[in-house]
């Protein structure tokens, strides 16, 4: 610990750039957006105070916004378990069955590449892969005689959703994998070796020892995936909104996410107030999970 010095301006000078920049470029926009969310405003005219009516409108009148919330939840409920379990299994396999640090590193990197790629590029690649006519997926299904006619993936609600979910899983499973890999490296081998001597096979060791020890990390991965997932925008936007002749939110708004609704309202229809209310409604959902995460992190640090 440092000794207590006479009142000294130095520490304040060190932390000033961060807190000042944060105040100007983040805190102010946050506060201002919150204020806007109680108004009717197109960004040019004089804002009209409307109280809570923007928020009430989201949950009582705007079927599209409600559908966006449902879609977003749906995507996460399906995609997150898949990406987390897949990431966990891969991390275990890489740790226990792959010999050599270099090979392990190579496998980790390969499976992690999608996460490093710009989500916009990913959206465009998948738009191509799942194209009705020349898309690789349909070509392969055709070659293998699995389907009689090409599937029009972007033409109906559920096939569109499947594509979005596949994109999410494809992009994120590598992230779960590297977090679990880091977690696995902290588990001492003694326990596992003792269990092996007692005759526990690989599956039993994973279920009885590894997974219980990984529980805090499991929680971390799930919550971080949830928080990021709630802000899902780039991939579904790229799959549909950027495609000529496709509806903004996919067929019947089936892939419309909350962030897409917010973007449309604020920056395309210039309903700044309503858009900000959608953003803040989402933020309150995110906040619940952020608080849980902060609690988990604190427990971790105290252990």
């Amino acid at each position, binding site marked *: 610990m440092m000794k207590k010095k006479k009142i000294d301006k130095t520490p304040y000078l*060190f932390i000033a750039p961060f807190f000042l920049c944060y105040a100007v470029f983040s805190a102010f926009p946050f506060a201002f957006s919150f204020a806007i969310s109680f108004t009717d405003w197109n960004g040019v005219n004089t804002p009209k105070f409307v109280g809570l009516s923007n928020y009430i409108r989201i949950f009582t009148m705007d079927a599209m916004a409600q559908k966006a919330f449902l879609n977003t939840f749906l995507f996460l409920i399906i995609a997150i378990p898949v990406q987390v379990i897949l990431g966990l299994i*891969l991390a275990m396999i890489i740790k226990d069955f792959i010999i050599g640090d270099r090979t392990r590193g190579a496998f980790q990197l390969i499976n992690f590449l999608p996460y490093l790629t710009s989500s916009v590029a990913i959206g465009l690649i998948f738009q191509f892969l799942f194209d009705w006519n020349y898309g690789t997926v349909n070509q392969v299904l055709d070659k293998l005689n699995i389907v009689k006619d090409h599937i029009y993936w972007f033409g109906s609600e559920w096939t569109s959703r499947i594509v979005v979910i596949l994109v999410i899983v494809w992009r994120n499973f590598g992230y779960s994998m590297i977090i679990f890999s880091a977690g696995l490296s902290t588990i001492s081998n003694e326990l596992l070796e003792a269990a092996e001597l007692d005759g526990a096979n690989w599956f039993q060791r994973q279920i009885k020892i590894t997974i219980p020890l990984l529980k805090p990390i499991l929680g971390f991965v799930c919550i971080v995936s949830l928080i990021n997932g709630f802000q899902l925008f780039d991939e579904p936007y790229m799959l549909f909104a950027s495609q000529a002749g496709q509806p903004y939110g996919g067929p019947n708004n089936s892939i419309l996410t909350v962030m897409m609704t917010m973007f449309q309202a604020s920056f395309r229809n210039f309903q700044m107030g309503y858009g900000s209310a959608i953003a803040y409604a989402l933020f309150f959902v995110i906040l619940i999970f952020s608080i849980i995460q902060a609690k988990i992190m604190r427990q971790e640090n105290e252990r």
Partner: protein
Amino acid sequence: MKEKAKIRLIRIPAYLLLAITSVLALVPFYIMFIMGTYKNEDIFKGLRLLPGNYLAQNIQTILQGDVFTPYLNSMFISIVSMVSCILVSALCGYGMSKFRFKGRTVFLRILMITLMMPYQISLAGYLMEMRWLHLNNTLWPMIFVFFANPFGAFWMTQYIGSSIPDTIIESARIDGASEFRIFATIVLPIIKPAIITLGLLIFLWSWNNFIIPLVFVSDPNQYTLPLFVSTLGGSYRIDYAAKLLNLTIATIPVLVFFSIFSKYLIKGMTIGAVKE
């Protein structure tokens, strides 16, 4: 002996699963690249798995457009974001971790709260603020968001707190070195690994950022790479081969760059999940 045989048996599905996911992770990139080497008409004539011979012509098509401006814009934005974020974060980390001052716990608490605020929520307010400052048609809105990055400041606080012994700083102070000299000549060299990790993460986040340029930029001269890529999807000039080659050029070089430094990136991303 029996146990050994069992392990071998488990190995087959284990390897198989890993092989499948590895292939699935790479195939979209491969197809993107392959399609860029074909004549547009040939893409429609069935499955293509080997490179074609139309690469040079497709490159010519692309060069008629402007690929370099978005690249340079993204470079500029990401590098300025990265450097300023490192500096701001490290200064804050040093101030927070190596001084005891009035209000420190309050500032720490504020820092913890900022960690929970995704900037995407405040886009409308941010846009209006930038309009008032007459900065909405410049590259700066895409840079300013990274100046004060809560993750960076928080992590630097932890890293400097745990990696630099107080005694080193104490003795430098006794020698009469000024605090900024200590920061520049003692702190910065010691925290080099953290600087590299944070720098790469910010570069990655800034480079791949899409929604801010989408909100702010309308002038093609200010397109960032992701924004440029997004306009490829909507172009009515249906040359898919050129489009995918464009995409290849926009993604692969920087992906190689990230791969080279993946160790640092992976380390950065596991911060918070795993105790060091």
